[in-house]
């Protein structure tokens, strides 16, 4: 019975995330696209929970779906309504054909790989302890095995913050100089 429930939840989440992804790509108004992406992130968080990633799921919802997407919406609202008249590609005609072909090829190749089972690497999942994916376990790993990655990540964030400030200041300065001229 529990098994069945897992499947139901999984299919629900997978369906939600596929539909919301398609919606993100196809809405002509970026505001709706952003809202759809929140749905996508939430569905993925469900899948993470199913995979034992409790802390990642929480982070996904709080940081990603919360903070980042709020910033997105804020920017979209700031820029105002700029609904695209023709949302789909102009550009060279072969662009569309090429994009569909390349995307299809990647998808097909992944399916083929899965079909080949990649040399029996995709065996049954291992048994895991109760502490798998808890903040404690992750924090321990972060501060021992992956300390360098942790620090580098923090520096990347710092650089990005500085970059955001610079971009904003630069835009304002050039705007003012334009106004003077």
């Amino acid at each position, binding site marked *: 019975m529990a*098994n069945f429930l*897992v*499947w139901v939840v*999984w299919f629900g989440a*997978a369906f939600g*995330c*596929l539909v919301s*992804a398609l919606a*993100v*790509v196809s809405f002509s108004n*970026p505001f709706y*696209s*952003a809202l759809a*992406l929140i749905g996508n992130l939430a569905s*993925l968080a469900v*899948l993470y929970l199913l*995979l*034992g990633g409790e802390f990642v799921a929480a*982070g996904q919802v709080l*940081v*990603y779906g919360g903070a*980042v997407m709020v*910033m*997105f919406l804020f*920017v*979209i609202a700031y*820029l105002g309504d700029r609904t695209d008249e023709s*949302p*789909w*590609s*102009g550009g060279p005609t072969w*662009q*569309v054909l*090429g*994009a569909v072909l390349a*995307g299809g090829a*990647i*998808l097909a190749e*992944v*399916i083929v790989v899965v079909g080949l089972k990649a040399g029996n690497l*995709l065996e049954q*999942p291992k*048994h*895991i302890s109760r502490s*798998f994916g808890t903040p404690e*376990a*992750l924090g321990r*790993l972060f501060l021992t095995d*992956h300390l360098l990655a942790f620090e580098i*990540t923090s520096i*990347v*964030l710092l650089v*990005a913050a500085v970059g*955001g400030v610079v*971009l*904003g200041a*630069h*835009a304002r300065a050039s*705007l003012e100089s*334009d106004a003077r001229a």
Partner: protein
Amino acid sequence: MHGPDIQWYVILSAILFTTGALGVMLRRNPLIILLSVEIMLNAANLLLIAFSRLHGREDGQIFAISVMAVAASEVVVGLGLIVAMGRRNVELDVDKLRTLRG
């Protein structure tokens, strides 16, 4: 609990990734492109976490968190650029930015 096998996750992730990639390649609005990139990143995250579960090790989750941080950084810079475009009243269309044309 016996949920779906890893193959299901891989296929799902591939579809998500392709969807995001098509969005990047076909849409002209930089905001949508940025959102599509988020989808691609999340597809990758899904795979990382699925394989983390498969191997019973949390390193994949660590990686996923790092990817999230990178994605946040990327959003900051991308949005900064878009705001700069918007302030200068540049039309929000990546096809208009063709200075690099050979």
